């Protein structure tokens, strides 16, 4: 799994479709960020190695309520921009006085990015099945660029963790991950995910993680005795 690392301004090809992380100048495609090149049949794209989360309509994210005004909640979505959840985008009809009962400042919420208006005004909605206020478990934060590694190809990595540890995991596209289950399971899952973040580009990551979980479980068993 040798990958092609590029820095901004690297020539990537001519006459190919410019995907994310690239720009076009005189029909030639160049990289726009420091990252890894991904080439499809026709398209070339650069997956960034670092950077801030740029909100995209349709993404499911985990937000943290930072303010509750008379008509909306303002949320920190781990991005340079705040997310706004207006009362009109809330699934239930509630009175303004009851807003504090629904979600309080400091609480974590699974929410969907409904639209991104000019200039980067982020409207949130609770119109997905998974949307909910988080009232149990733990939310951890990793670099959002490492989220695809945590999910793995076709969800292979996340399924491995879920199966081996038996913990409920929800992954927000903005780099926040919600874990719920027993305390030990949460701890092990959090350690595993942080390990994936650290070793994101190592060879045979799945095997490594499998081994890591096994070792950790064994260690725990000994301590209990």
């Amino acid at each position, binding site marked *: 799994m040798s990958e092609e690392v590029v*820095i901004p*301004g690297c020539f990537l090809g001519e006459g190919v479709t410019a995907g994310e992380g690239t720009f076009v100048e005189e029909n030639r495609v160049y990289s*726009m*960020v420091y990252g890894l090149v991904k080439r499809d049949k026709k398209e070339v794209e650069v997956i960034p190695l*670092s950077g801030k989360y740029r909100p995209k309509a349709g993404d499911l994210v985990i937000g943290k309520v930072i303010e509750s005004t008379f008509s909306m909640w303002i949320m920190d979505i781990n991005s*340079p921009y705040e997310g706004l959840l207006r009362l009109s985008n809330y699934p239930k009809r509630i009175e303004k006085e009851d807003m504090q009962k629904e979600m309080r400042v400091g609480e974590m919420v699974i929410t969907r990015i409904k639209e991104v208006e*000019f200039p980067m005004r982020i409207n949130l909605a609770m119109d997905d099945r998974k949307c909910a206020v988080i009232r149990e478990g733990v939310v951890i934060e990793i670099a959002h660029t490492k989220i695809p590694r945590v999910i793995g190809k076709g969800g292979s990595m996340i399924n491995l963790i879920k199966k081996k540890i038996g913990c409920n995991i929800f992954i927000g596209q903005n780099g926040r991950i919600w874990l719920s289950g027993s305390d030990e399971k949460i701890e092990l899952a959090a350690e595993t995910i942080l390990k994936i973040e650290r070793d994101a580009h190592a060879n045979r990551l799945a095997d490594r993680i499998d081994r890591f979980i096994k070792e950790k479980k064994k260690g725990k068993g000994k301590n209990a005795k």
Partner: protein
Amino acid sequence: MQNRPEKLINDGVRLDGRGPDEIRPIKIEAGVLNRADGSCYIEWGGNKVLAAVYGPREAHPRHLQDSRKAIIKYRYNMASFSVEDRKRPGPDRRSVEISKVSREALAPVLMLEYFPRSSIDIFVEILQADAGTRTTGITAASVALADAGIPMKNLVSAISVGKADGEVILDLIREEDNYGEADMPVAMITETGDITLLQMDGNLTGEEFIKALNFAKKGCESVYKLQRRSLIEKYEKSCSD
């Protein structure tokens, strides 16, 4: 301060043994600070510079926000211990000017329209100075920006050229800067040849100027290679182990 050496160039050999068009040894390392979004440490001859990039993040105060693009803040700061005579800490006329020209040297490569209303904050700390700190700072800041994952068209490389003992020279050291006839920092987008910063202290003839610019171009090419390598090395390090 020591006195002026009798000769800055002896038979084409400079005080530190370099030829006129040779650069000092350079070591660049990307991603040295954990809390910054992007960072870079550079040792360039006697210069030691640390650059950190934060953001894009919410711009404060709010009236500085631009609804069409991100704003850049650049802070060049010399540590009080970076020079022989203690430098009085804090911004002064010189560092405010350098911050301004450095910010403008980097702006052409940054794709600011990707992050409207936000701010990209660049901090450059000069830990040890030996002439050419603004060019060293720009070189380091450019790597730190790429490390922070900020969309850019290319990297900016910078180097100084000048004249001492009547000869055009590349990458001046302190003695050549203090006692030489001219000092000209240049920053450019090496791959396209676009110049984004050019200042001059002293005098050069037209011919000397062209020669100096060619030296700078050659110097920037070497600097660019080292910048690229530092970023690729950072990735490779994250793969092994």
